[in-house]
């Protein structure tokens, strides 16, 4: 079974994001970039499927600038077999990404597509769903457990107030939630081996997808700064303030 995993280059989750002074976007200059954490979980799941003998090949695809090869190399070091970079300097929107992924799905014919439920940069949480609609493939979103069973995959989904398990006919799309697994770290020998694994570069034009934009970014504002706290002298004072100032009692 071939597994396709989509990974995105985003700001490292440890970095404190700064908004540009003109509020036009987030400031990316000299900021550490990394693989989106949900995508890392998807890679880990694919590699585990391979280690279990369920998957025979793990192909990683990323869409982004040339440097996004770094994230593909990371996935290869974690155990994926080969990579595809769809190189573009354009801004990425969920629908275009879904269209590009559809083109890759048609070419590669994977039985399972694993991707993060969302990326931590724009938090859209819709690309997997859009890809499902475009390809007519079954989808299991927010997975906390993935079990391939013959020509089916059972996906346990994290939903409000509980878990819901769906059985999908393969080929299918699964988007990962945080609790699906704990991604491994790559060993130095595997980092070195990853350098020799194949990585093909293609472009949206090659895949026949136009990078048209349907959205324009209006404004980005940082969250309001937290106000400094105060010390109260007594429980009575606290209750008084909760009643009359905060008006929560």
């Amino acid at each position: 079974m071939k597994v396709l995993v989509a990974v995105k280059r985003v700001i490292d989750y440890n970095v404190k994001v700064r908004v540009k002074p003109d509020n036009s976007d987030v400031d990316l200059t000299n900021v550490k970039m990394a693989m989106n954490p949900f995508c890392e979980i998807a890679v880990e799941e694919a590699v585990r499927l391979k280690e279990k003998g369920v998957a025979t090949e793990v192909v990683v695809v990323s869409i982004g600038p040339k440097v996004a090869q770094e994230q593909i190399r990371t996935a290869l070091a974690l155990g994926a077999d080969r990579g595809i970079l769809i190189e573009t300097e354009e801004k990425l929107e969920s629908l275009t990404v879904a269209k590009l992924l559809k083109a890759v799905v048609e070419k590669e014919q994977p039985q399972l597509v694993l991707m993060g439920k969302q990326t931590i940069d724009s938090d859209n949480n819709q690309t997997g769903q859009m890809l499902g609609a475009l390809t007519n493939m079954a989808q299991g979103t927010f997975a906390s457990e993935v079990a391939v069973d013959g020509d089916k995959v059972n996906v346990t989904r994290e939903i409000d107030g509980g878990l819901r398990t769906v059985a999908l006919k393969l080929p299918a799309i699964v988007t990962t939630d945080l609790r699906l697994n704990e991604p491994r770290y790559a060993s130095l020998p595997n980092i070195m081996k990853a350098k020799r694994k194949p990585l093909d570069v293609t472009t949206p034009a090659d895949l026949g997808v136009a990078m048209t934009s349907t959205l324009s970014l209006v404004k980005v504002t940082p969250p309001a700064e937290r106000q400094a706290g105060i010390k109260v002298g007594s429980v009575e004072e606290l209750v008084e303030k909760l009643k009359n100032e905060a008006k929560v009692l």
Partner: protein
Amino acid sequence: MLTFDSLRLASPYYNDNHAEWRSQLRKFVEREIMPHVDDWEEACDLPQALWHKAAEVGLLQLGYPEQYGGLTEGTDIFHTIIAVEELSRTGAGGIYATLMVHGIGLPPVVHFGSDYLKNMVIAPVLSGEKHISLAITEPGGGSDVANLSTSAVRDGDHYIINGSKTFITGGIRADWYTVAVRTGGEGVGGISMILVPADAAGFSRTPLNKKQGWWCSDTATLYFDNVRVPASYLIGAENQGFMPIVHNFNNERLALTAGALASAKVCIEEAAAWAKERKTFGKPLSKHQVIRHKFAEMVRQVNATQAYMDSCAWQIQNGKAKPADIALLKVQATMVMEFCAREALQILGGAGYMRGCKSERIYREVRVNAIGGGSEEIMRDLAARQLGL
């Protein structure tokens, strides 16, 4: 914000592959080491499982020949520097010193040992199953290596060893020791290196676990009482032991430099986070000129040391290193570590004096860096001699 990472100068010596190694190793350290550092320090021990994990991630094998299970392909000296830095980022120098002690114990075997010794020793050490320590220093003296007195006398196809070694890192855990012994006359021309197994009859060891720092590191005094070792355990030729000792000095001093420098950065990071939060006299500490200038001064020294270190590493890699430069680099690094530990503790105030603060621990680790692996005095003296003075 001043952080461990923001303090790293962009440098032509590091590429994407180095960055990848750093980020994967960072994950390893965050998951397998960071949560346990305080416990291990208080327990004065490290778990054996750590060696197996370190072998899995490739730490133990880095830089050793592939035919014995090592890893050299595609790696260079900067991968090693990154390994030291990321392990030192824990703020507990004892972890690197002990986990990677084969970095001083093994090279004599790798570069001067017979095939017989190499086949016996290297692979199990690199897989983390077995441990090897280096035993040079004696109760009678450490700096004056040429005058060491532990003796090895040839008796048929064995050597009989008598004497004692002290302050030996990893000395309680070790399965083998690479020991400097006197086989000939006075001075450097009478020294040999020999492998001694910890289970040899007549060998014993006692722990030195009341140390100022490096608590998680097992340090030992070793006693050799008519210890018989096969003559085939000799590393290199008889009375030619000084070469294996000095051969690894540049690498050892570079590693000590990287550790001292990383420790200095940990101090700056911790003090900076505190200085931005802590308010005195109506404003954050970081807004008081006296404190701001402390940071500027620390960063100045760290930057200079970083550039000096990277340049020396490149020189070592390309066979262009002058021992004087490497010796003085080590002095530079330990003095910067000392300065930064001092200033960080001043900035942290009483909080910095309490256990649980990385800078507090690093402060207690300054001296072992400044004394071990060639003391500051000895390094300066060596450099002056090399400079023809």
